[in-house]
Structures are given as C-alpha cells and as structure tokens.
C-alpha cells in the first residue's frame, strides 16, 4: 500500500468500475473533471482526487453546474469528464440536451451511473432513454477493463463526431472489481479557447442548423458502430441468439456459454447494419437487458421481426444469472438445497452519535414531522421517529412544504417542517427557499448541517471549507445566505442539546413568518473523538421505562428486564442523548471537556 496509482504505468490492477473510469480518464489525458457525489458514481471523482493529481478535479454544487463547467473547459479544447448518479442526469439534462447540438471541442464524457434494484436511490430510471432523447452517443461497459477502455473510446468519438458521449454504467459495474490491464498517461495538449458563435450560441437561426447536423451525425455514428470493435458478434449455437449490453452480457455468458451473442458496447445510436447481420445469422433472438426494453423495442421496430425480451426477462429490479436462466431456460434452474426462512429485516439506521438523531427524536416526541429530502436524514421516516412523510428529489422538501401550505394553509401544515441537509440545500434547496420568501410562505425549514455530504460516504461541499482534495476552500455561510435571501428568523442549534432543540421547534413553529433552523453538529465520519467514553448504567436506578430505547440508537438494546445494554463497540464517545432522556439518572457518561 502507499504508492499512488499515477506512479503505476503498466501491469494489472484489481479495480472497481468507478476506479477504472478514473484510470481511463487519466490514461486518456483528461484535463478536468467535476461532479456532485451520488451513489453509485461517487468514487469516480474521489479516485481522481486521491490518485491522479494530473487531472484538475472538483466537487460541483450540483450536477448541472458540474456539466456546465466541463462544457466550458471542452469549449476551450480540454478533455473533460463529469460523473453523476442516474437522477443527477435529470438535474444536468438542461445543459446536456443543448450540448448535444453544440457538440464538443475537447472530448466530453458524461458518466451516468444507474441504480437498477434501487440499492441507494429513489427510482430505477434507465438513462439509455435519456441519452437517446438527447441524441448523444451511449457506451455501456460490461466490466472494469471495458469501463477503463471506453473512457478513451468515448473521448475519441466525442472529438471525431463533435458530440458529448454518455458513458452509462450501473451499480454492478461501478461497485464490482475485476482485473484491469493498465497503461501510462497520454498527454494531450489543451487546444485553447477560440470563439465560434455560430457553433455555440443556439439562437433559433443557428440551432436549426445544429439540429440537422445532429441527425446526420446519428446516421454516421450508426455506421461507425457497425465496424467499431465496441460492438461484436460472438458466433455460437444458431438456435439461440442473444442481444445484450452492460453487465447483462456477463450473466448471459455465465448461463449460456454456447449461445450466439451480439455484444453491444455502443447502444446509441444502434449499429443497424451489424444488428441486421446478427438477426440473419440466428434462428431465435432474445434481448437480455436490465431495465427498460431499450434495445428490444428499437430492434423490433426497425426490422419488424419477432424479438423476445421483456416477456422473459424482468423489467423491474436488478438482473442476475438466476433471472436470466429462469427466463430463457427454466429447466436448467439450480434448486438451492436450503430454504429462505423469515427473519427480522435489518434496515439501515442512523449511526450511533448521529447529529440527526437529536432533531428527529425531539420532533417525534412533539408529534411533529417533516417533508424530507435526499440524504442520511431520510432515515427520519423509520421507527421510532416516524418523523418524515415525503421525499421527492434533491431539494424538494422545501417546495413540498410550501405547496402543502398553499393547499391547506398554515393551520393545515401543523407541526410539519422541511428537513434538508446542508449539501442538498446548496445543491437545489436554496431556490425553494427563495420561492418561500418571494411567495409568502410561513413554514419552518430545518437545514441539517453536519459538515459534510454524509450519505455518499463523507465528501466536502461548498459549506465545509475544504475542496475535493481536502485543501482549504472558502465556505458558504448558511445562516447568512438564508438571511440574504430574505429570511428574517434564522437560528443555529446543536441538535444534541435536546431542550434547546425543542425550544427552537416550538418557537419557530408558533411563528406566522418563514423561519430557518440550522441544526449544526459534525457527522461522526468527519472526525476522531479524543475520548473513548461509553454510557454506563446504574442498574439500581433503572426503572425500565424504555426512554433510552426510543432514541433508536443502534448501540442500545434491552435486556430481559427491559434495562438498556450499551454496546461498548458502538457507543459514540461524544454523544450523551441516552443520558439526557433517562428520567431517573440511571445512565451516565463522562463527557469530559470534549467538543
């Protein structure tokens, strides 16, 4: 351990798809990369930041800005990359759709990391449909080697055909590791910024010409795809022809080693000549693809031949070898020797010591609740809190709260607040807050400031005072920002100071004016505490009332007498919530001078 990967110029590395994309960017001479973190894409920029200092890399406040800054750099002749989770592409869709018209000067790669199965997402959208709607090239790697190699291929296509390229990956590509042959970095000079108004200002007069160029480009790209080694026919048994892409290719090869396979690495536009040749060479055609019938519908519509697909292969959820086998040759299914037994679920929970626990505990005790947002604090919906009632997308907690008030009035919103993290607030909550000010909403917005973007593993953001590489950076002052937007009542509270937290909710909810409560306490991932203190029980004083267990702290469980047992392994030294809620003083903890 210890050597940075930019010092490894050849050999074989064991890389995740995300690490391989970072490597591919480095080897292909990418100059600049920007992203907003989002599972399963986050490690792409993290790896670039940690391993490849030759690439200028930064966290953007949101995906739209991420794509805009790489677009500018591409206009100036730099090779660029932006990465995001699938729903991030919705945020970046506005620049993407017009960049398709404008094209790329320096090679431009946009990575969309989709999450079939929704391991860590709110929907299962298939961004191949987005790429097709934007009329850009889509490449789909099926392992880490291809993920690395396709970054280079994408940059070349981008420059040759003057188009952004969508590198579409999925959770199983991003977070699976496999062996990758690596090479040195190729240095590519930055072309320099040359103004070209007809190319880059899509006023209608220019945009009409741009659109014609895009349609012509798609035809040329289809021909290119038929001869490119990104797509290939693997001849086999003529009675079973499978068209596939992405990780599904691996499941197909695992389950049907004898089949004829059309393996597509470039899935938009489709290589029609090659697809036609494949159809002619086999007797039965089945499309095996995760998500929507993207390939299936296009092949059927183009050739008007019987093509099977979603009738056999599930549209919902993630694929795996079992599902592919069951759909096509159910008689070969493997009978597991042992059965599933019903077991208690193990859902995720707020960590011991989590700052959010204090806020949700108080809100829940007051019979209050929240419109929620995207982050760890979405877990406020879980028992014992039951204190979060809606989640739509990044930033929506604020607009939704405001809309409920518009429909049913302030009385009707009761003890509902908007709950949003500081990173999500900067991403796209701030416009919602400005709307509340402008349109006279009177609700309470709780900005949960834990000092980093936590859900994705702990990244810096514009409020933390550090950049992607951990270097000092200017920090946005959230309370001042809210005041500058016109919010008159802004207060900052430590969410682990339970009486103060309660007072804040009571006072702000009683107001008939808009207010912001910033709950500020660092995420436990952001520092190592000095102390190793653990909460201790004086069993003689415990009356088994259960107040401590109602905190929902994973470090606390009850023994047979209903008394708490505190896990020494899990108890967080800087947290004393259980001590605060214990009515008899049975729990104690040495908090020292601490934080």
């Amino acid at each position, binding site marked *: 351990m210890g050597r940075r990967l930019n010092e490894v110029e050849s050999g074989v590395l064991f890389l995740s798809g995300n690490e391989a994309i970072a490597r591919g960017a480095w080897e292909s001479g990418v100059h600049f990369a920007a992203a907003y973190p989002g599972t399963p894409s986050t490690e792409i920029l993290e790896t670039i930041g940690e391993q490849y200092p030759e690439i200028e890399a930064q966290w953007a406040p949101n995906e739209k800005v991420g794509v805009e800054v790489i677009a500018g750099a591409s206009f100036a002749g730099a090779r660029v990359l932006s990465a995001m989770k699938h729903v991030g592409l919705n945020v970046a869709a506005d620049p993407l759709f017009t960049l398709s018209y404008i094209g790329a000067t320096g090679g431009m790669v946009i990575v969309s990391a989709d999450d079939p199965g929704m391991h860590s997402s709110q929907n299962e959208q298939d961004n191949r449909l987005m790429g097709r709607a934007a009329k850009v090239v889509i490449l789909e790697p099926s392992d880490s080697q291809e993920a690395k190699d396709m970054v280079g291929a994408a940059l070349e296509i981008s420059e040759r055909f003057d188009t952004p390229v969508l590198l579409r990956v999925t959770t199983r590509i991003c977070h699976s*590791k496999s062996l990758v042959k690596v090479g040195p970095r190729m240095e590519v000079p930055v072309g320099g910024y040359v103004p070209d108004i007809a190319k880059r200002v899509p006023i209608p007069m220019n945009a009409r010409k741009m659109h014609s160029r895009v349609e012509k480009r798609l035809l040329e790209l289809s021909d290119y795809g038929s001869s490119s080694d990104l797509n290939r026919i693997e001849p086999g048994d003529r009675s079973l022809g499978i068209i596939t892409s992405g990780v599904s290719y691996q499941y197909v090869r695992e389950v049907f080693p004898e089949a004829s396979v059309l393996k597509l690495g470039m899935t938009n536009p489709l290589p029609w000549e090659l697809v036609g040749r494949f159809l002619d060479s086999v007797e039965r055609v089945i499309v095996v693809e995760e998500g929507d019938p993207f390939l299936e519908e296009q092949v059927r519509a183009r050739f008007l031949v019987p093509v099977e697909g979603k009738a056999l292969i599930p549209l919902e959820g993630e694929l795996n070898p079992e599902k592919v086998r069951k759909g096509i040759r159910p008689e070969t299914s493997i009978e597991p020797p042992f059965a599933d037994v019903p077991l208690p679920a193990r859902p995720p*929970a707020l960590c011991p010591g989590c700052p959010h626990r204090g806020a949700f505990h108080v809100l829940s005790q007051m019979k209050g609740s929240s419109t929620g947002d995207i982050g760890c604090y979405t877990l406020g919906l879980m028992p014992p809190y039951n204190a979060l009632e809606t989640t739509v997308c990044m930033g929506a907690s604020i607009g939704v709260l405001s809309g409920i008030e518009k429909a049913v009035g302030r009385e009707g919103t009761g003890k509902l607040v908007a709950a949003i993290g500081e990173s999500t607030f900067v991403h796209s909550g701030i416009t919602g807050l400005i709307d509340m000010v402008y349109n006279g909403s009177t609700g309470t917005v709780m900005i949960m400031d834990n000092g980093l973007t936590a859900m994705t593993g702990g990244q810096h953001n514009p409020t933390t005072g550090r950049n992607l590489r951990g270097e000092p950076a200017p920090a946005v002052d959230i309370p001042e920002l809210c005041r500058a937007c016109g919010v008159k009542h802004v207060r900052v509270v430590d969410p682990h100071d339970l009486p103060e937290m309660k007072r804040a909710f009571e006072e702000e909810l009683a107001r008939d004016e808009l207010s912001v409560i910033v709950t500020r306490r660092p995420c436990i991932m952001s520092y190592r505490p000095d102390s190793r203190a653990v909460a201790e029980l004086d069993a003689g004083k415990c009356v088994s009332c259960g107040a401590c267990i109602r905190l929902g702290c994973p470090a606390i469980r009850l023994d047979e007498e209903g008394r708490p047992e505190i896990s020494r392994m899990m108890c967080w030294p800087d947290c004393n919530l259980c001590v605060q809620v214990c009515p008899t003083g049975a729990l104690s903890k040495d908090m020292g001078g601490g934080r």
Partner: protein
Amino acid sequence: MTTTTNVILCGTGGQGILLASEVISYAAMASGMDVKKSEVHGMAQRGGSVSSHVRFGEKVYSPLVEKGTADMILAMEMMEGVRWAPFLSPGGRLIIPDLEINPMTVNTGQAEYPDVVALLDGQSIPYSQVPAYGIASELGNLRVLNVVLLGAVSSWIDRIPEENWLAALEERVPARALEVNMTAFRRGRTLTLGQR
C-alpha cells in the same frame, strides 16, 4: 459444475466485510486466478445488511454468485448467516461467529431475534461456529473479528496456498494494524484446519 469458486461474505455495515473480501480477492489473484467481486455501497451501509460476492477461477464472467452455488459463506453476524444460507451449494459450508447484533426492528420490539442455531440445525445446514468475537476480545481489538473469520474460512479454500493469504493481508491491511491482523488470521486458521 465449473471451476469457479464462489464465496459470499455477509454481516452488518461497519464490520469490515469490504476489507475481508478484498483480502480473499488479492489472495486469489496472487494464486494466478481471474477474480471478480461485487458489493453495494451507500444506503446499505448505515448499519443495514451488507454482503459481498467473491468469485475466482480460470475465467469468471458474472460478478454475482448464483443462489445454491456458494462454496463458502462467511457470516460476521449470526442471523445474517441464516439469511444467506440459501446461497450455499449442496457441498458448501457456512461459517458463523459468536456474535449477535440486534437489528433496529428487534430493538424497537417489532421483531424478535431468532434462535440461529435451531434454524441452522432445523435444515441440517453444514456450518461451523468460530468464536471470533471471543478471540478478537482476547487480542484486545474487536475490529479484527473479520480477519479471525477470514483465517477460519481459508482452511476450506485449497486453491489458495497459505503464503498467498499472508501476502494479501500484507498488501491490504495498513502497516500499523498488520501484526494484530496476522495473529487474528492465524488464530482463525488454526482453529478450523482440524475440522476439515
């Protein structure tokens, strides 16, 4: 059926499953094999169930282990072992520790923690219980529970010689924690070598 060895590691967030699956992968690589490993990050890691699939052999396609085909399942928490047991192949083996971690659903009284041993015996699931929590406590570092279990599981994986396990540990474990991890690995391995 094929020459691919399938291993599943499971447990709860924060138990070191990712490190353990990394060590298995590097040990298999050092033994000249193709390797794939797959896991899920993000929401799943906030104390929820976590699993990692590792496959190695001459040529590996799918990064996921198919149900009913795992040669070894290494559980870092007892109930999670039962949850993943249906992935075992007929000749496979489950390794469980001496550690129960209540899920929040049990803590809040929505569910009861099951009798794991009764559930395993009820289906005659071949398993070995390794006192990894006890050993890790003895070693004064509860975090090495994962590596004790890794040592235990290594006895059943003939295609990886011992020196490659040790080399993989050296490669993946930070230097300051290497000694205690090496001891943990050997304790686990010694314990199960006799059980084969």
